[in-house]
């Protein structure tokens, strides 16, 4: 990597973007103009709304009692004592009407609401004075229209107003009858808000800012990416650049850094402009509000985020912008022209929007699962930090940042890969025909699947598993052994069918070879060596992110329903060992290895393996599954066979399933205390955990460094199983 080349490319691309009017408009002018205009519009709309009072027709106003007045002395409004002082400032205008006139007809009343001449109609019955005297129950109908928001709001306000009127009447009566106050109102409810000033201030922004930050960061990345990649192809300068001595990685990184700069700038300027508009709006809102409490609420709600929150936002924005920039560069290089590049925008937004909409739902709380979801994790963490919830922020900072950085890194690798591909760089227009394409898939099959086919296989497994779970939920079937077995069958099916149909050598794809004997030894040694570490890690994860008691209960229920230990071992150890290995270390890993990026392929397949466990059982399993996935992937690559992995996977799961049994055995033999500090949970003594770490590391390093194909000649001589 030549840093000077990288800098030269970066400098040119930035200069190019700064000279482009469209980019400047999107990054600088658009945010500066948009929010003040929006803010001005909001103020105008609010002002217009305030000037329009709600009309309440009171039919039979003549029957209202004089001693407890409902209406104001002039009769054109309600008694000011009954109005809520915290209510907004839209006045309620009363239009008293006699019951004898046209308003006596129910049709006339309903029509008035329908055509908007009245927001609500209150009907005072003629016998109200008599019923009051006799202290009987009286019904006062209020007509309103639920589909018309102002009418419905007027109805709610009238109900509160009548409640206060009712309380006044009851108070007068208790006083008159000399009864204690608590006679009619035995309970007084008073709420105390414990929200801090920062939380109140952050509440409005915490909903809007993460959403805007993500959208603006994406928009800011997309246009420059299309211009720098597809635009360069279209203008014919891409080939010139590729012929220069700069490597593909330098070219991609130069472009990526430019796109990232644009993305960060767009997001920061948008937030800055919006924050400034917010302050102005809050001041305006304060001056418009009549009541002091309203003024305080307006100022608090729209006050800008604190400096600390702003710094958090910028810090989190950087990996997010890196992720978007890398994805946009990789997508944009697929396009042959700027026009084609624009087509990719809609699908990209469609994928991102649901992920970001989650953060607009106040009930969505950051958990370990969401922290792994790209975009959503960052946005939820941002929300927590703006609210001043530093406990959540601190706990989830790494679980959000690490995956986001990993996703950004993977997207960047993908972008560099795209720049290496001749068929992407020199793609020509062609007429797509599904039939021809399918024929091509079968006719031009290659011995191993492609990376795209591996990702498709994983998506099919995920979708099939999700549909199974949804089907079980709809049918009311709880988790049971048969469902677990069916789930495994669905994991097995896509890789098997795809290997048969899309590759010319299913045997090589699924690694159905006899390996050298030492790999069987490794497959036995690894799970045994890893067991103390795996148990300890599981325990630590559970401490940090506890498993709910309901889930624990349902898990133990599945285990207890098993007729024998052998069935449990079969369902939880043997089946997953075969099915998951064929899928993840068979088809998927082979596909990801398509361009010989072995390290990335192992890591990515392990991450997919971990993610499947999040979906299938618990998100707490992610760490263990990913860790084991890396070891299993390496074992499969080095041994050129699936069999050691199946043995490893089987032993690892069998040790977990039968743990209770053999711990009891050890206890009976008096050996349990020698191994375990907590036999119940399978937690080993520190010494064994340290040994486990040491031995596993040695085994791993042996596989990683010493067992490379260039050091061992015999790995090439693997014999097929079938």
């Amino acid at each position: 990597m030549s840093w000077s080349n990288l800098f030269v490319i970066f400098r040119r691309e930035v200069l190019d973007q700064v000279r482009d009017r469209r980019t400047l408009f999107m990054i600088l002018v658009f945010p500066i103009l948009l929010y003040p205009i929006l803010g001005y519009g909001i103020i105008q709309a609010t002002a217009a709304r305030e000037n329009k009072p709600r009309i309440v027709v009171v039919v039979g106003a003549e029957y209202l009692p004089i001693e407890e007045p409902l209406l104001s002395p002039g009769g054109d409004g309600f008694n000011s004592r009954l109005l809520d002082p915290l209510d907004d400032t839209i006045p309620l205008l009363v239009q008293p009407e006699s019951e004898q006139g046209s308003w006596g007809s129910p049709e006339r009343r309903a029509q008035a609401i329908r055509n908007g001449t009245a927001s609500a109609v209150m009907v005072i019955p003629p016998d109200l004075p008599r019923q009051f005297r006799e202290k009987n129950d009286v019904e006062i109908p209020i007509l309103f229209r639920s589909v018309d928001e102002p009418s419905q709001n007027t109805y709610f306000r009238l109900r509160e107003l009548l409640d206060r009127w009712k309380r006044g009447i009851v108070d007068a009566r208790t006083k008159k009858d000399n009864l204690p106050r608590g006679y009619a109102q035995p309970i007084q409810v008073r709420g105390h808000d414990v929200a801090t000033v920062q939380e109140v201030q952050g509440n409005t922004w915490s909903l809007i800012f993460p959403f805007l930050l993500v959208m603006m960061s994406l928009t800011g990345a997309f246009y420059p990416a299309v211009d720098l990649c597809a635009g360069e192809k279209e203008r014919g300068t891409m080939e010139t650049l590729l012929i220069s001595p700069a490597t593909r990685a330098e070219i991609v990184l130069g472009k990526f850094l430019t796109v990232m700069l644009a993305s960060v700038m767009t997001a920061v300027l948008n937030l800055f402009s919006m924050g400034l508009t917010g302050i102005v709006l809050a001041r305006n809102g304060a001056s418009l509000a009549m009541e002091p409490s309203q003024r305080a609420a307006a100022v608090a709600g729209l006050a800008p985020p604190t400096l600390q929150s702003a710094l958090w936002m910028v810090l989190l924005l950087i990996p997010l912008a890196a992720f978007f920039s890398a994805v946009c560069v990789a997508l944009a290089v697929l396009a042959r022209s700027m026009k084609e590049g624009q087509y990719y925008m809609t699908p990209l937004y469609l994928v991102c929007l649901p992920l970001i909409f989650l953060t607009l739902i106040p009930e969505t709380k950051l958990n370990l699962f969401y922290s792994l979801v790209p975009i959503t994790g960052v946005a939820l963490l941002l929300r927590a930090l703006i609210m001043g919830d530093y406990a959540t922020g601190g706990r989830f900072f790494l679980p959000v940042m690490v995956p986001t950085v990993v996703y950004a890194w993977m997207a960047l690798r993908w972008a560099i890969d795209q720049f290496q591909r001749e068929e992407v760089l020199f793609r020509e227009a062609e007429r797509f025909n599904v039939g021809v394409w399918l024929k091509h898939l079968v006719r031009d099959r290659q011995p191993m699947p492609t990376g795209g086919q591996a990702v498709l296989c994983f998506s099919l497994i995920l979708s099939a598993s999700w549909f199974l779970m949804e089907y079980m939920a709809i049918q009311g079937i709880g988790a049971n052994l048969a469902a677990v077995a069916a789930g495994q069958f669905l994991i097995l099916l896509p890789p098997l069918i795809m290997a048969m149909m899309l590759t010319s050598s299913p045997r090589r794809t699924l690694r159905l070879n006899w390996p050298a004997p030492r790999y069987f030894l490794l497959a036995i040694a690894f799970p045994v060596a890893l067991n103390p570490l795996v148990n300890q890690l599981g325990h630590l994860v559970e401490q940090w992110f506890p498993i709910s008691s309901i889930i624990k209960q349902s898990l133990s229920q599945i285990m207890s329903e098993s007729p024998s230990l052998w069935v449990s071992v079969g369902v939880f150890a043997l089946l997953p060992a075969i099915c998951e290995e064929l899928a993840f270390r068979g088809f998927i890993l082979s596909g990801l290895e398509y361009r010989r990026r072995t390290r990335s392929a192992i890591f990515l397949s392990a991450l997919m393996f971990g993610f499947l466990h999040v979906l299938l059982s618990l998100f707490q399993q992610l760490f263990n599954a990913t860790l084991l996935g890396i070891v299993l992937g390496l074992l499969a690559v080095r041994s050129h066979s699936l069999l050691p992995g199946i043995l490893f996977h089987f032993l690892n799961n069998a040790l977990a399933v039968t743990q209770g049994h053999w711990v009891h055995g050890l206890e009976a033999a008096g050996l349990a205390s020698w191994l375990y500090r907590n036999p119940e949970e399978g937690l080993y003594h520190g010494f064994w955990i340290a040994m486990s770490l040491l031995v596993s590391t040695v085994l791993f390093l042996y596989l990683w460094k010493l067992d490379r194909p260039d050091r061992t000649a015999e790995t090439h001589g693997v014999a097929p199983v079938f």
Partner: protein
Amino acid sequence: MIHVERLCKSFLDYQRGWVFAVRDVSFDCRPGEIFGLLGPNGAGKTTTLRILSTVLKPTAGHAIVAGHDVVAEPQAVRSSIGYMSASTGIYDRMSAWELVEYFGRLYGLHPERLRERMEIIFDWLKMNDFRETLGSKMSTGMKQKVSIARTIVHDPPVLIFDEPTSGLDVLVQRVVLQKILELRDMGKTILFSTHAMHEVQKLCQRVAIIHQGELQVAGEPHELLKRFDQPDLEELFFHLVDRADQETAMAEPASDRPAGARKIRSPDQPDLPSLPTEDETDS
């Protein structure tokens, strides 16, 4: 300076399967010589030149450019060549001076040396009138001069021109050809692809005729005319193209043969070389 031996390149096409764009192409090109690659559109000229400039990898065979292998040392090859084609564009939002300077820096030229070189080139190509003009405001002739300046800014020993006069008016064509001749006189190794006969006659000391991805013949023009008993290069070209088409028609039914390319078997079959791969972990 350029040594090409049995170079092959095949592409995977949805409709046709694996097709050869270039098959078994071999030739040599020496310093101080313009070697012409003559062929109709779609003959495989651009693919050959792209392999020599390392943007495409050959499926088989090998090529040495300025002493470096195109597959093993692509960066060293790129540093030693200047490549220009009619389709290579220039940046709209950069001036002539900025663009040439940008590429000069990418070629690792020291700022002072780069400045000296650029002054010489701008004088030689008479570009000083528009050195501050943006790419978007340039005429086609200006753009072509900027492309030439960009191609030679690092003073490469090998120059590859892929139909550099295609789509240009006669005045600009004349300037471009004149400058290529001057470059030859400076001792550069020049590979020049075209489908225009008069350009070959004017420029090339030796010529190779390529059709359907295969080299039909190579040698000095007058020697070739004598060997095939043809009055001029144009007639020789038609004669060789007709001969190649007839041979292909006899070898396979016409319905199976797409224009400009030959169908081949999939690369995992033994008679074809597999795509080059490298193990990231183990390399």
